[in-house]
């Protein structure tokens, strides 16, 4: 781990310095999880729906080549220009080139985690193109010059007073005004002006249908539609895994997506873009950026089934108490922790360890990704590839040596003594990391083994 780089544990440490704020963050997201539970429990066939979604996505991954070709052909027939990007850099160049051809240097963008993953905003800014994010949460973090901390609720880490301050500074709202209704209205006015004056709009893609060449974009605010339908050029960016075979498969995914995400029965807008409107240009960028590598890993490929609902984040007791930024990657939380090591195993070596493996993430996942099992498996890979800290590796070897031998184990000392030195909660770090906020277990006068030898063995 290089020195200027803070890992999940260090960043969580900082986040936890303000306990009241952690409580607030945890409660806010637990509220979303509770809404998800209520929505799911309102659908008796919920578990069969999850199974159906999982199987459709398994089919997609197993037939992705043909579906991509089919989708591209149909999209082209519909009048959409299809581009292919091997990585983030190529994606950003493609988008920039389209804008240059159109002579556009100001654009609006609705939510797209892919463009976050590719750091498109920074790239375009460097190249003199102004990007305004139109999702309210994304606009807020953009004004704050921060990345989103959550894929569905980008500014969930911000208090309304902080948002009020930002709006006061950037949008001229009255100082101290922190009412969500007032602030949202201010953003509406500000962004409507933007919608009216920008000639290019970028959107993400939730689903792309191979059979018809159409793609579906889901929002609650209507910002993707406002952008796309007013702009002369619509650029939609998607990872290659977003394909689904048939239009009717959307019924399964749209029933699951928003109930899992926020507990709503469906997003306000589920828009199916098939053809550009007359006079409009529609571009679609298909991005790999490591996805084909993840596809080659049998243990991890089904992370590509993700539909970006964030249910795993809302339910994750670690995410709720460490905040999205502690994951230092575009997609935080449990799903981010199994996606990120594929992109850079060294930089994200800490993330699969930022979990208690409690398994709640896998249970809420609408496409049944075995997230917690993959976290366990990534740990094994990361250690084998040599990205575990050396001290930890040495401690583990000592542990192996002792625990493999009943003789050494029993003679390592009286009850508790060996453990005080080597137990899981003391290895890898100084003892005081347990003791800072917790008492050590009291050492009994004898271990169970010693008691058994005295009291039972020779009965």
């Amino acid at each position, binding site marked *: 781990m290089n020195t200027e780089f803070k890992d*999940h*544990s260090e960043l*969580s*440490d900082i986040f936890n310095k303000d306990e009241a704020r952690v*409580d607030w963050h945890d409660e806010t997201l637990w509220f979303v999880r509770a809404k998800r*539970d209520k929505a*799911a429990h309102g659908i008796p066939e*919920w*578990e069969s729906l999850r199974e159906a979604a999982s199987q459709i996505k398994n089919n997609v991954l197993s037939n992705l080549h043909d579906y991509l070709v089919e989708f591209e052909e149909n999209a082209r027939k519909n009048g959409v220009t299809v581009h292919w990007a091997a990585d983030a850099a190529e994606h950003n160049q493609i988008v920039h080139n389209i804008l240059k051809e159109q002579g556009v240097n100001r654009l609006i963008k609705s939510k797209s985690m892919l463009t976050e993953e590719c750091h498109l905003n920074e790239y375009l800014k460097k190249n003199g193109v102004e990007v305004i994010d139109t999702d309210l949460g994304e606009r807020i973090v953009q004004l704050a010059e921060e990345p989103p901390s959550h894929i569905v609720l980008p500014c969930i880490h911000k208090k309304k007073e902080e948002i009020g301050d930002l709006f006061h500074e950037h949008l001229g709202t009255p100082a101290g005004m922190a009412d969500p209704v007032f602030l949202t209205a201010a953003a509406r006015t500000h962004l409507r002006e933007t919608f009216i004056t920008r000639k290019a709009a970028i959107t993400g893609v939730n689903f792309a249908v191979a059979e018809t060449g159409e793609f579906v974009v889901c929002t609650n605010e209507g910002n993707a539609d406002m952008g796309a339908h007013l702009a002369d050029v619509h650029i939609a960016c998607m990872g290659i895994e977003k394909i689904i075979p048939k239009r009717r498969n959307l019924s399964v995914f749209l029933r699951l997506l928003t109930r899992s995400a926020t507990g709503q029965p469906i997003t306000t807008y589920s828009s199916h873009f098939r053809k550009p409107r007359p006079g409009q240009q529609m571009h679609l960028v298909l991005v790999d950026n490591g996805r084909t590598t993840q596809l080659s890993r049998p243990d991890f490929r089904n992370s590509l089934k993700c539909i970006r609902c964030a249910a795993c984040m809302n339910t994750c*007791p*670690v995410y709720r108490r*460490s905040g999205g930024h502690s994951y230092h990657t575009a997609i935080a939380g449990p799903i981010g922790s199994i996606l990120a090591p594929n992109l850079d195993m060294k930089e994200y070596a800490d993330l699969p*360890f*930022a979990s*208690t*493996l409690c*398994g*709640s993430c*896998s*249970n809420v996942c609408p496409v049944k990704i075995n997230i917690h099992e993959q976290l366990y498996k990534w*740990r*094994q890979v*990361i*250690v084998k590839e040599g990205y*575990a800290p050396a001290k*930890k590796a040495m401690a*583990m*070897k000592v*542990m*192996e040596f*002792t*625990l*493999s031998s*009943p003789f050494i*184990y029993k003679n390592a000392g009286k*009850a508790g003594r060996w*453990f005080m030195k080597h*137990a*899981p*909660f*003391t*290895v*890898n*770090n100084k003892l005081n*990391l*347990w003791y*800072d*906020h*917790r*008492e050590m*277990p*009291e050492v*009994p006068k004898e*271990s*169970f*083994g010693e*008691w*058994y030898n005295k009291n*039972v*063995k020779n009965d």
Partner: protein
Amino acid sequence: MTVGLFIPCYIDQFYPNAAIATLTLLKRLGVDVKYPTRQTCCGQPMANSGFEHLTQGCNDLFIENFAEFDYVVSPSGSCVLHIKDHLHAPKDEDKALGIRKKVYELTEFLTDVLKIEKLNARFPHKVGVHQSCHGQRGLMLAQMTELVEAPFSKPLHLLNMVEGLELVELSRPDECCGFGGTFCVAEEAVSVKMGKDRVADHINHGAEYITAADMSCLMHMEGILRRQKSNVKVLHIAEILNAQ
């Protein structure tokens, strides 16, 4: 029917009373139970830290200790889950598979194998049940709040047989306590916060005791309770099921 008693290392070293209660309870229920004394650890602490490749010594020892029994029973859902999922014997994988099929956590053994419907136990206290994640979500000892499925709970089924025991309801019935093996020190801040929140849920609902089918979660919560100088105590479920 012979039962091998598998006592995880930290219970052996720190919580002998939980192990004694397990042994006594099984004996009282007429089970022929033995404790193979050459056992150490299932290897989970290493495996969950990414060092599963260092656990073959533990695996070999586990097989050596427990192959002969009809069942292996342990008062730890987490360790049982590790054995169920990760016990391997490259030279004789069938042997490992055999053990993986016959290893049981205590409450599931009492419920599913012994099919206990009555217990001679008395514990006149208000008790909060901590659903340890590996037991609940891994071994499915109880239904999980995330799933749209019929409710059930093996630990609660047993606790309801205990005379005088009053269960307290929690705001979050199956949230993780934050122990997580090496997580408890590697991610100290979050681990402690999770533990504090879990403990608070029990205290706010009037629990005098917090119990669980996993001593490791209780060890973590006990550390926090004692630091807070709380009167609330932790007790392994075997000690309550065995209480007179």
